[in-house]
């Protein structure tokens, strides 16, 4: 049982979600409320990671911030280590890869708010910010929670991208999914089995809690 790897995976999942919540809310709202030229293209770009093979994304990420790239150079200058093979690289890759899981449910949730309700909020004297806090977020909450859970669960399971961009550095980029792969190769079936069972239980309980939670919120909203 590789506790370090588990901790790493959980950390990656949580930080990922924390970063994606504001992005999801911001972009989800814009896509839900506004019509503009190129919106179709924007939505397609957001949805792209859903259909893109992880290795393709991994390849382009390596090109984009590998040691030879401008971003890689910059990182090296500032932090005295390359960007690839670090937790930060995994985080960046995860955030990009999880964009559709974060944005789409939130977009649907904001779309489901009747435009009249938002207009009513303005007529009640609520500034756009207050309307967001008092009306939009409470109503979109189930969608936001769904987005957070999906992103978290998806991050726990990421493999191809993590391997390409992170290597399998124990304590830095060896997530639990990679650790399972590693243990299988080492003929350590006991450890692989333990970790797999744990991940399965974790994923199931997270999903079950989410569904129960959103049913409960749904009931409150009538």
């Amino acid at each position: 049982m590789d506790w370090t790897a588990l901790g790493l995976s959980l950390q990656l999942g949580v930080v990922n979600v924390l970063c994606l919540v504001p992005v999801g809310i911001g972009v989800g709202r814009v896509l839900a409320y506004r019509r503009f030229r190129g919106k179709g293209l924007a939505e397609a770009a957001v949805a792209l990671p859903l259909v893109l093979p992880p290795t393709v994304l991994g390849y382009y990420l390596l090109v984009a911030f590998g040691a030879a790239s401008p971003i890689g150079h910059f990182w090296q200058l500032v932090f005295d280590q390359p960007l690839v093979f670090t937790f930060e690289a995994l985080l960046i890759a995860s955030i990009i890869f999880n964009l559709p899981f974060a944005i789409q449910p939130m977009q649907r949730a904001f779309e489901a708010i009747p435009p009249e309700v938002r207009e009513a909020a303005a007529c009640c004297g609520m500034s756009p910010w207050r309307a967001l806090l008092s009306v939009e977020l409470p109503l979109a909450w189930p969608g936001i929670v769904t987005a957070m859970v999906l992103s978290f669960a998806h991050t726990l399971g990421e493999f191809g991208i993590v391997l390409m961009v992170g290597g399998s550095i124990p304590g830095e980029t060896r997530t639990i999914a990679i650790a399972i792969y590693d243990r299988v190769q080492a003929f350590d079936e006991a450890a692989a089995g333990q970790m797999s069972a744990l991940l399965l239980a974790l994923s199931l309980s997270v999903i079950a809690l989410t569904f129960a939670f959103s049913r409960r919120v749904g009931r409150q909203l009538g």
Partner: protein
Amino acid sequence: MDAQHAIGIAGRAFCAALITVTFGWSAGGRAAEAPVIAAASDLQFALPEIVEMFAADTGSTVKVSFGSSGNFARQIRQGAPYELFLSADEGFVLDLFREGFMRDDGVLYALGRIVIFAPLGSPLHADSSLDDLRTGLTDGRLAKFAIANPAHAPYGQRAEEVLRRRGLWDAIMPKLVIGENVSQAAQFAASSNTQGGIIAYSLALSPRVSARGTFALIPEDWHAPLRQRMALIKGAGSLATRFYSFVRRDAARVVFRKYGFVLPHEVDLTEAGAAR
């Protein structure tokens, strides 16, 4: 307490646990004090034993990453934070040294050997002449055969060399199952999903693998030698340097020999005990 109430509490407890993990885990998690060693997959069983000995001896620990040597060489060029590289082929180490990534040109730590392995219940026999393999190809007993990836794993390259030399490559190529590294190839070869494979001697010697089938050493003059070389990478810390010296000492050499790794001067000592 009704169901809704319980769900609310469970949800909150879960979030609290997650936050704790995120911010409280750093102590054991990402602290990069223990240096990371890049080791060829054929050391999968040998090196952990040496690491344990090192820990018992000095009280310090190192972390090991196993994989194919070619893959590690690529990662090191890209700046991966390894401090010591144990390659299965000295060519990788020497190239890296010439390109300025290594502290020095390192030392030879072993001569590797390859074996043909047949899992229990396989219709193939593991024989060092590979004759049964040849007949197995023609009479259809062989459906799948595992080797490491010749593109970047030294053990895979030697497997291909041997198969070509024996004139089996063209016939066997459509039936090959390629492992990412020699460990994965051993995994495939030991499973009942293949009829066998060519893997590292060191892996076959490990009880976990040898219990799963039979193997036979392939004559070493059938392939270029597996001169396994290791070297410290530029910027390696003191702990990695100490480990590097430790690995060359007698205590470690015993472990190497146990797994069939010999140095040129040790060859005569082990020839007698080696499999046919």
